[in-house]
């Protein structure tokens, strides 16, 4: 069997190589093992923390906050985006306010939220809600605005009522772009829950990582990061599976049109 340069297994080999170099460099103290503990130690710490329930508990706390802020943002800003996309007058009215609020970098909302809600869950939910608002709102607006006019005219010709026009024509036609907004927001949610837990919290995975660093439990810190990477990866896959299933009809229709 000869070496195949195109094989995907090479990637696995590289990964194993990186891990091996990490392990050896740390054990032989080429790099300071206080800062970069051996991979085996990090993994052991990870599995211990998962088995003991520490990491799952922290992740659950963070996920509750993330879900609350994310779902709240979706519930508020998808309808608002539809309204803005449908009615030019409302769009013109809110345009300047949106343009003024949009450039606010989400992390600087954390102090405001701390002022308004204290250090509890409300603060994190608000921060996530605020930062998810723009991708969801603007993508929904764009999607609705760009719905094929022929679809709308056809529905009108058939005497479809306004309410049914929105739920049965416009929302489905705009759904891929709404999904894009939701997907971008998913990544933002994860970032902001970590930020808000680092700046003002006493639990959650963001706090756990920073706290482990401050107590110099470095292997725990890396274990926490590993769990966050896995979480991000999982969430992305779940989202892709969900949208693929929910939107498969859309792909079928649009490719047929071609």
């Amino acid at each position, binding site marked *: 069997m000869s070496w195949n340069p195109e094989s995907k297994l*090479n990637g696995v080999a590289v990964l194993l190589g990186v891990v091996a170099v990490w392990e050896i460099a740390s054990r032989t103290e080429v790099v300071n093992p206080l800062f970069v503990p051996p991979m085996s130690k990090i993994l052991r710490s990870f599995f211990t923390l998962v088995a003991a329930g520490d990491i799952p508990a922290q992740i659950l706390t963070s996920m509750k906050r993330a879900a609350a802020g994310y779902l709240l943002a979706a519930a508020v800003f998808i309808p608002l985006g539809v309204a803005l996309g449908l009615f030019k007058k409302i769009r013109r009215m809110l345009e*300047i306010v949106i343009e003024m609020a949009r450039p606010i970098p989400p992390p600087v909302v954390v102090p405001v939220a701390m002022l308004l809600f204290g250090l509890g869950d409300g603060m994190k939910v608000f921060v996530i809600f605020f930062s998810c608002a723009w991708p969801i709102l603007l993508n929904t607006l764009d999607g609705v605005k760009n719905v094929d006019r022929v679809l709308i005219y056809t529905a009108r010709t058939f005497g479809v009522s306004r309410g049914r026009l929105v739920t049965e024509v416009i929302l489905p036609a705009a759904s891929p772009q709404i999904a894009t907004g939701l997907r971008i927001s998913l990544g933002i949610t*994860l970032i902001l829950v970590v930020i808000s837990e680092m700046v003002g919290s006493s639990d959650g995975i963001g706090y756990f990582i920073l706290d482990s660093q401050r107590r110099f439990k470095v292997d725990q810190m890396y274990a926490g990061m590993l769990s966050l990477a896995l979480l*991000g990866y999982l969430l992305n896959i779940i989202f892709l599976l969900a949208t693929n299933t929910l939107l498969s009809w859309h792909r079928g229709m649009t490719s047929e049109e071609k």
Partner: protein
Amino acid sequence: MSLSRRINAPGLATFAVLLFLWEVSARLNPVMGAYLPPASRIVQSLFQLAFSRELFTHLIVTLGRFLAGYLLAAMIAVALGIVLGYFRRAYNLCEIVIELLRPMPSVAIIPVAILMLGIGNATIVAVTVYACAWPILINTIDGVRNIDRMLLDTGRTFGLGRWRILRAIALPAALPYIVTGLRVSLSIALILVTTGEMVVGSSGLGFFILDEERSLRTGNMYAGIALVSFLGYALNRLFVWLDATAMKWHRGMTAREAL
């Protein structure tokens, strides 16, 4: 006609009404005023701070970190992206490592950076570089992959070396994708700089905003937020302008091709 259409009267009216409601309710209700001072007070704070050296220094510090992180990320990620996009084998080798690191929220590396680089400029810049590099890298790889094969083959036919092809054909042809990545990273850079300043900084606008909140000087806090937002807005505008000026040739070329 054109002027009245360009000036968004209903938009301005809504803005004015909201501003008025905010001002009145904050003045009438002192409890609310403590959390959300009247808009006039915030503007006043902004003016007072503008004449003190303090805020200006914070602004310069933040801008410096932003530029350092953003530009470094751009250089590293574009170079790496071109190599990984052009050489399929190189990408295959790195794919798994990339896919493992990418989904981790970038802010999670702040503690590692603190551990290795201490609490100061280096940590904030390093974290910014890390976070900004991803969108640029992924877009550059995509851009190089989607280059018209004919362009590359033409280059080869004319006997250009690999290096010349990368520099003279691949880079310009992938530029629209690279610009998209750079644009996404622009707002990410500001997010990471302000976050870094909140967590480890002792200067910069992120630090200033958090510090004013802790000292309950809410007027100053909102003034800082307004300034950061303006900074983000201005940087974005600058980017759009640079893009429009620098990429004119590309639009011209692709438009001609369409004919």
